């Protein structure tokens, strides 16, 4: 019995540490010689990494290159510049509404994520621990909701958003994004809640705690890694969302970064490549920074949702 308990108590950490602990790959690698590894491992890996990262290098380089170097590839080496300029970036930040778009995206992402996490925590707890009548079916339905893609929903949703009087307001996005986020984060949190030993809850129930107190005082503090994972992943999904923002928002001052870059920054046939690339780079930076701090959580969110 105690063994079972100890094992259960160890599980939340195990889920997180799975990446690090389950890494036995050094097992037989000593059998390979260095030249052999060069060809079978480092060379293909280097090539793939090069292809994966080159667009970002190109993005960053373009955003600091002077215009004449961008268009003249014969006199200047296109792969490098010795005279970087901040012209494109300052132009983007001070001559366009880019800061407003960044703010809109941030606002929508934070609000939609907060709403979704709140709804998901309650739903996941009810599905895993209350085990009410029909919990299994509801769980299945929520999983199905995850499989409904936005590109099928945006047409009827646009009429719904119009009916509710939300068209062309940030609320149109704040209230529709949770439909993408809730199914995902509910499944993720269900996985985390399952790893918390229910004996803890039984003790709390015996001591007279209500379900709400159990949730806020016992479950949530133990599920913090899961909450962080869900938060980061939802935030990324919001930032990435495009089709709803494109359909439901028409005034420039309410647009999000991805939509605004495509619709407002691209004007006519003269593409302002420097500003466009600067916009794309600055728009990605918040996510990349967030990702750099929470790599482990991010990966566990991604793989956790798939494994469930």
């Amino acid at each position, binding site marked *: 019995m105690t063994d079972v308990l100890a094992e259960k108590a160890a599980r939340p950490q195990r889920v997180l540490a799975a990446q690090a602990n389950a890494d036995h790959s050094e097992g037989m690698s000593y059998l390979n010689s260095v030249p052999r590894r060069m060809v079978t491992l*480092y060379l293909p890996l280097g090539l793939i990494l090069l292809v994966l990262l080159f667009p970002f290098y190109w993005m960053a380089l373009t955003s600091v290159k002077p215009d004449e170097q961008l268009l003249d590839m014969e006199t200047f080496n296109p792969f490098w510049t010795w005279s970087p300029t901040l012209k494109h970036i300052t132009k983007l930040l001070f001559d366009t509404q880019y800061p407003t778009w960044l703010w809109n995206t941030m606002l929508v992402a934070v609000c939609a994520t907060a709403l979704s996490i709140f709804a998901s925590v309650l739903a996941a707890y009810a599905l895993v621990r209350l085990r009410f009548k029909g919990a299994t079916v509801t769980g299945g339905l929520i999983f199905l909701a995850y499989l409904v893609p936005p590109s099928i929903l945006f047409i009827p949703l646009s009429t719904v958003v119009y009916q509710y009087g939300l068209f062309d307001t940030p609320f149109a996005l704040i209230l529709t994004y949770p439909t993408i986020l809730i199914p995902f984060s509910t499944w993720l949190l269900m996985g985390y809640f399952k790893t918390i030993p229910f004996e803890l809850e039984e003790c709390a129930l015996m001591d007279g705690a209500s*379900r709400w107190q159990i949730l806020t005082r016992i479950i949530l503090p133990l599920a913090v890694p899961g909450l962080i994972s869900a938060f980061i992943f939802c935030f990324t999904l919001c930032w990435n969302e495009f089709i709803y923002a494109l359909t439901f928002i028409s005034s420039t001052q309410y647009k999000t*970064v991805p939509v605004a870059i495509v619709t407002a920054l691209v004007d006519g046939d003269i593409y302002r490549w420097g500003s466009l690339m600067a916009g794309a780079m600055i728009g990605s930076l918040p996510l990349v920074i967030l990702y750099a701090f929470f790599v482990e959580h991010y990966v566990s969110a991604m793989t956790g949702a798939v494994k469930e």
Partner: protein
Amino acid sequence: MSIALQGAKPAREIREVTAWDRLKVNKNWLGAWFMLPAAAFLILFLAYPLGLGVWLSFTDARLGREGVFVGLENYDFLRDDPVFWLSVFNTILYTTVASIIKFAIGLYLALLLNENMPFKAIIRAVVLIPFIVPTVLSAIAFWWLFDPQFSIISWSLKKMGLITQNIDFLGDVWNARWSVIFANIWRGVPFVAITLLAGLQTVSPSLYEAATIDGASPWQRFRFITYPLLTPIIAVVMTFSVLFTFTDFQLIWVMTRGGPVNATHLMATFSYQRAIMSGYLGEGAAIATAMIPFLLAAIMVSWFGLQRRKWQQGADND
């Protein structure tokens, strides 16, 4: 509890259990309240629009105008519309080619990342970056990379002497198709690789050691250990990959808007064009609804085609 309280002063009066008290601990009652926020969102903004979409596909609704029921007229119209069938063809081509290549490269990359090497953690973190960056923003970078005049790819190939003319990446029918497929693969590989890597790390190394002692070649170790143990996770990953590729909108919209001559229109971009740009909501809804059977079929194939018994996941009791 009552025994413990006997010595001390009774903190609270003991009273009859009321119906309200019973209700407060009733699981179904509590469950309903806990489910309420999530259910409200999903019903108002997901289930209702999904049904409404199917209904709209049977009406002649326009932007800003309620439609009346017209039966299968929209579908009849689509059946005779060559652009619709072209978009179906494009979608199937896009999904099949991109998914297969994503799977192949993703699995290969996962196997490479599973090796022991210096800076392993950093390399793994870096691999995922294309997946983190919003699709639209990387699609813009690809748009620039595929520029007809200033493409760095054309420039490099010309310098190497492989081509004499710039490649018209997004202006030629088949070039455009391969270009968007390439961009999709570029974005999808990290997701496949990192999730498969998580699966690979659960495979016990002693299996490989035992197989090596028995004289198994590297290919046999992959075919008879790695692959069977990985099938459940491959099934899930590929289902998601197929789902997201099939319903892709962003990449196409940013890079080609469905052009040249509709050669890269997917069903999603086509329905956007018909419903929002031209205002024929009913027709757009019919295209979107027509995606559902394809989608279900694609999910079924990747799910049941790759699904294996549960013992492979390490479960023995259910």
